[in-house]
Structures are given as structure tokens and as C-alpha cells.
């Protein structure tokens, strides 16, 4: 029990170190290709034939302890990044509602919302809104267009 707890603590410390709260999330493409690169052999060994999706995550959760250290590390980082980006994209309307009303005089929770946030300086945004907007990845996606 103590061992488990300290393992979990150690994992959190590692995650906190490599994924600080103000870090950017990865694009879904970068995240999942990092997983594929770090875990290619482990997927072949433990999760062969398991489709990319919830069953793959279950396979990682079930066999994680047996997988290579680089795969275990990547798995934690990658799934954390994916769920953080997904949560940010889901919650941006709530997180930035007040900012959008203040900065752009509107509260449309659609593409206009993003145009508003892209048009203003991060310094003008509340830290919560700025962090959530950063986590959505939409600044970097816009730069790719």
C-alpha cells in the first residue's frame, strides 16, 4: 500500500516536472505520434490488434507496469496532454466568457469567440482564459493554416 502510494506520488512528481501547469498542450498529432514512437514495441508485444481508442488506453492501463520506461513516461504525458487539450476546447466558452464580453463586447460561443481571442493580446486576458486558450492549441493551429 505504502509502495503503491509512493509510486503514485513519484508518478505525479514526474508528471508535474515534465508537464507544468503553464505548459502548452501538444497537438493531437504530436501527442499520439509520440505515443506511437515510444511504445511501438510495447504495443506490438502487449496490445497487438487493439484498436486506437478507449481499448488501447485500457491495454496501457492493464499492462503499463510491464512496459518499457520510455513508453510508461510517454503514456502519462500523452494522455494528460490529450485530455487537457480536449477539456480546454470543451470549456473555452465558460473560461473566457467574461473576457470575451469585456474585450470584444460579445459572448458568441462559436468561431467568433476564437477570432476575438486571437485578436487580443494574451496580456489583456485573464490568466484562466489565457491558459485555457493556450491549452486549446488554437493559436498554433491558426499559425499552421
Amino acid at each position: 500500500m505504502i509502495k503503491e502510494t509512493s509510486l503514485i506520488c513519484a508518478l505525479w512528481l514526474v508528471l508535474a516536472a515534465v508537464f507544468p501547469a503553464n505548459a502548452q498542450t501538444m497537438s493531437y498529432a504530436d501527442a499520439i505520434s509520440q505515443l506511437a514512437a515510444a511504445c511501438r514495441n510495447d504495443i506490438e508485444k502487449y496490445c497487438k490488434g487493439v484498436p486506437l481508442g478507449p481499448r488501447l488506453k485500457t491495454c496501457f492501463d492493464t499492462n503499463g507496469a510491464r512496459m518499457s520506461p520510455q513508453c510508461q513516461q510517454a503514456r502519462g504525458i500523452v494522455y494528460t496532454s490529450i485530455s487537457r487539450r480536449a477539456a480546454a476546447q470543451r470549456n473555452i466558452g465558460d473560461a473566457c466568457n467574461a473576457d470575451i464580453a469585456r474585450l470584444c463586447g460579445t459572448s458568441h460561443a462559436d468561431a467568433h469567440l476564437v477570432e476575438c481571442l486571437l485578436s487580443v493580446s494574451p496580456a489583456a486576458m485573464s490568466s484562466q482564459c489565457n491558459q485555457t486558450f493556450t491549452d486549446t492549441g488554437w493559436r498554433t493551429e491558426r499559425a499552421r493554416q
Partner: protein
Amino acid sequence: MQSDIHRYRLAYGKGAAMKSHYIFVVAAALIFWAAVTGAPAQQQINSGQMATSLAAVSNTGLSLTGAQMRQAVLDNIHNYPGALPPHPLTFPQLENLAQFVVEVDFDFNSAVIRPSSYRTIGAIADALHNPILLGYGFLVIGHTDSVGGRQFNVGLSQRRAEAIRDALIDPFNVNPAVLDAVGMGEEQLRDPAHPTSGVNRRVQLVNVGKKFCFGRSGEQFVCP
């Protein structure tokens, strides 16, 4: 319809097992598509360009449903039997819609996406989450070459298109309500003169128009 596919899949299972591993190709906006056909198989997809291409053509929505397309595919096989489709199946309604092409590798004779193609699925997810595509609906259309029975190929391409759809939904959190998967089999060969060529193996991602609008406080509703 599903049970028919299953039955034929079993019937044609042996022939299809001869098939070497399958590659799916998704197609880009048609103009863009012509420009990239010479590109190497495992080109790295730019999600920003994909999003721009998928948003490039404004359209007012498609009356054709995925279910109607799936039925049309089965009808085409029934009405025009033969080892190769004597009449390619066409959907003129799709031709002017924004679309994109990529390639996805699958395990042999299976709908399991290979790790080498995880990045591609992630890039599609990045594009579909781009705010310029917010609320739009998409068809994921799988195509095969002519190796294997026609009905088998419909079933396999359907399961592969569904595997892509499922991965986009989880882990990549794309709204399930905006995605529909269609298996076209070999009914729409891109190069009918070379029916076994790899250029026929592809998945089209097609923007079928705005499905959802958003209210002032972020609530989602079907556009009026």
C-alpha cells in the same frame, strides 16, 4: 444490411486473406488533391492546411445521408454484378463539397489502424477541432482496390471507416454527432484501368455542411 455484409465477408474471407496489407487513402479538396497525388505515401499531414481545405468550399448542406450512400453501394453490387463494378457508383452531390485525402495503414485484413498512422488520425482530429470547422458535419468514406470480393470490400472499408471515426471520437474527443462512416468498397475506383493499384485505396473526408449552431452561452443546437 449489416448481416448481409457479414455473410458475404465470410463467403469471401478466403479470397480476401490473399490480400496484402491494406492502405487507406483519404482525399483532399479536389484541386488540392490533384496537386498532392505524387506525394510519398507517408507524407506528414498539416492539420492547418487540412482544416483550410475542408472549409474551402461553402455549401448549404447535403441532402444525401450516410445510410443512403451505404444502401446505394449495396444496390450497385446487386444491380451490376461482376468481378469488377461495370458501372462506377457516383454521387454528384459530393463532388463540389470540400474534402481531403490522407493515407491510413491498417493491419492485414483488419480494421485495426497501425501505429504508423496514429499521427494521421491525430492530425485529422486537430483539423476537425479547428474553430473554422466548428459545427460542420463530415463523412468518412473508405475505398478499397479491387482485390477481394466486392461485397467483402464494402464490409472491410466500412469497418475501417468506422475505426477512424471511433478513434476521432475517443481519444480525440470529436463530437460523434458530426461524423458518419461509409464503406464504399471498390465501387468507386479512382483508377479503373488499374483496379488493383494502391491509388484506389483511400478514405475521403467530406464536409457535408453545417450541422450545429451555437447560442450566446455556448449551447449547441441544430441550425434552423
